[in-house]
């Protein structure tokens, strides 16, 4: 606040613009280095697989199924909340798709219906969290069961063949492969770009950071806390419905347990990417890289000649190493 306090702190003197930059992007730099190292290991150990474009085309299709949700989830977690119900929303959205598609014969209307159901499910999460005033962790554990149960009851446990959607332009929009690259990946790029703008260059994101950093400050400074949190849950619901639809249309089948395997990889992608579980800090770029690390490990393990038994062990190790790197960088650069 004064000239002498500003001039005195010698401990801060000598920090250059480069250090400032490193400090700002420490987490992103860390995750990028970890990603490149992992990639290098796979290329060295399995050059046949990792120098061919086939494996990358496969990643480009399978990783978005959880990476798209991870983008919205990153914002929820930056706001200091969490959503564990998205795997169930992936399936519940498909109920909306199947019903409307069955009734109207229109795939496009089915797509809109699924997105609407996803938004409604997210709105429900957001309202319970903010209006009843419960921690989102607890609420979304509850709605994870609720939405899955609703899905099972509504379709009576049956699965649906979606073969008839083949050739429909609405389906092509989600599953085609323009230029040999799956639409899933193009959608991921679009969703990531939108998420980045919202979080870093939009009022919504500005409020998200403050809410996650310090709710009291947010309240005292007049930030619409409840509205912001609800919007983030809605976005996650929509993202989950989109991912669930792509997944189902890709395998031309919808079964009511679809999505349940995506809970942990999605969370892992967000945390490996450097987003803080305590809120207030996180990056879309980190989640993007984190998602491809998580997405690449399973295939990489097989390709380098290890059995599938190793998968979880290596997942665990990489997750722990990544979050430790983030914690150490954080402590080093933020005093």
């Amino acid at each position, binding site marked *: *606040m*004064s*000239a*002498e306090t500003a001039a005195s702190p010698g401990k*801060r003197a000598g920090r250059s613009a480069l250090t400032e930059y490193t400090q700002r992007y420490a987490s992103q730099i860390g995750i990028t280095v970890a990603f490149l190292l992992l990639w290098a290991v796979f290329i060295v150990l399995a050059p046949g697989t990792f120098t061919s474009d086939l494996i990358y085309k496969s990643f480009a299709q399978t990783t978005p199924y959880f990476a798209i949700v991870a983008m919205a989830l990153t914002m929820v977690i930056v706001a200091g909340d969490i959503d564990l119900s998205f795997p169930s929303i992936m399936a519940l959205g498909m109920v909306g798709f199947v019903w409307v598609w069955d009734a109207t014969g229109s795939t496009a209307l089915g797509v809109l219906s699924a997105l609407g159901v996803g938004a409604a499910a997210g709105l429900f999460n957001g309202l319970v969290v903010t209006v009843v005033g419960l921690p989102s962790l607890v609420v979304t554990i509850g709605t994870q069961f609720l939405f899955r149960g609703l899905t099972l009851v509504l379709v009576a446990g049956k699965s649906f063949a979606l073969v008839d959607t083949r050739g429909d332009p609405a389906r092509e929009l989600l599953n085609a492969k323009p230029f040999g690259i799956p639409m899933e990946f193009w959608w991921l790029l679009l969703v990531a770009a939108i998420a980045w703008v919202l979080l870093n260059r939009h009022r919504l994101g500005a409020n998200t950071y403050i809410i996650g*950093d310090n709710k*009291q400050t*947010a309240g005292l400074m007049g930030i619409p806390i409840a509205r912001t949190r609800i919007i983030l849950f809605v976005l996650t619901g929509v993202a989950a419905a989109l991912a669930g639809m792509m997944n189902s249309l890709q395998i031309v089948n919808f079964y009511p347990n679809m999505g349940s395997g995506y809970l942990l990889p999605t969370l892992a992608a967000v945390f490996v990417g450097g987003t803080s579980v305590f809120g207030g800090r996180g990056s879309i770029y980190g989640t993007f890289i984190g998602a491809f690390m998580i997405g690449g490990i399973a295939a990489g393990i097989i390709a380098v000649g290890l059995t599938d038994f190793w998968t979880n062990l290596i997942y665990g190790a990489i997750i722990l190493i990544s979050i430790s790197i983030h914690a150490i960088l954080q402590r080093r650069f933020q005093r």
Partner: protein
Amino acid sequence: MSTARAANGDAPAGEGSGPRQRGTRCLELRGVHKSFGGVRVLEDVDFHLDRGEGVGLLGDNGAGKSTLIKIITGYHQPDRGSLLFDGREVHDLTVQKARELGVETVYQERALAEQQPLWRNIFIGRDITNRAGILDVAQMRRITERLMTEEMGFTSAVLTPDTTVTGLSGGERQGLAIVRALHFEAEIIILDEPTMGLSLKETEKLLHFVEGIRGKEKSAIFIDHNIFHVYSVADRIVILDRGRVAGDFPTSRYKLDELMDIMREVASTGTYSPDRRGNGAAAAESAEGLASA
């Protein structure tokens, strides 16, 4: 803060309307009650603030000072009673509305987001955006940089608009909170225990700064439990005790030691009765002072 300049080119124009002359009543609270879970925190509180006036709000811990402030800033809503800004009653005041009416607060808790860069802290809740809500980050960084050098006196090159609050000292944080309050053309500036945790020298600077506010036809409410900090810069001292206004004393008519006696009496009896002081002239004056209580 080397200077206490409130008006500057980038700040939004002052909101609200009406003549803003010295002496007109800019804020009034009538019969305000507030309870939390059955505990009465404020009871039938009347309070007013004139333009260009500095009021010291004193009282022990738990007297209701912070709650009174949070009602004025729209953070809490009173259970009963009314709030008037520039003579007009305002219903359902929110923080956003209060800020639009020109109320700015420097909170005891500082109300900062520690892990966020300085520029985000300056613009919490009112980022500069286009109509689609897209932030003008470059502009906000630029303004923050200017405020840092011109208003906060941060000359060190290692502090940039992107430095996080975790990198600031206590005094620097206080400076940030005050400059933020000033940047947005506040009409009423509320300082909630602003001297807490500050060094002697920093406190002195702060008091200077409060004098500066009054010189600019802005009004200030200065909350403290230390009368020494408040007396020299306040036109009036309002003493709160256990949720009630125990007295309202113009500093032009009460000496510091008189006020200290009064405060002591209030602390032990909950009220202040002028007769007991045995000084006829002073008693008459204090009765006048109590008239608004």
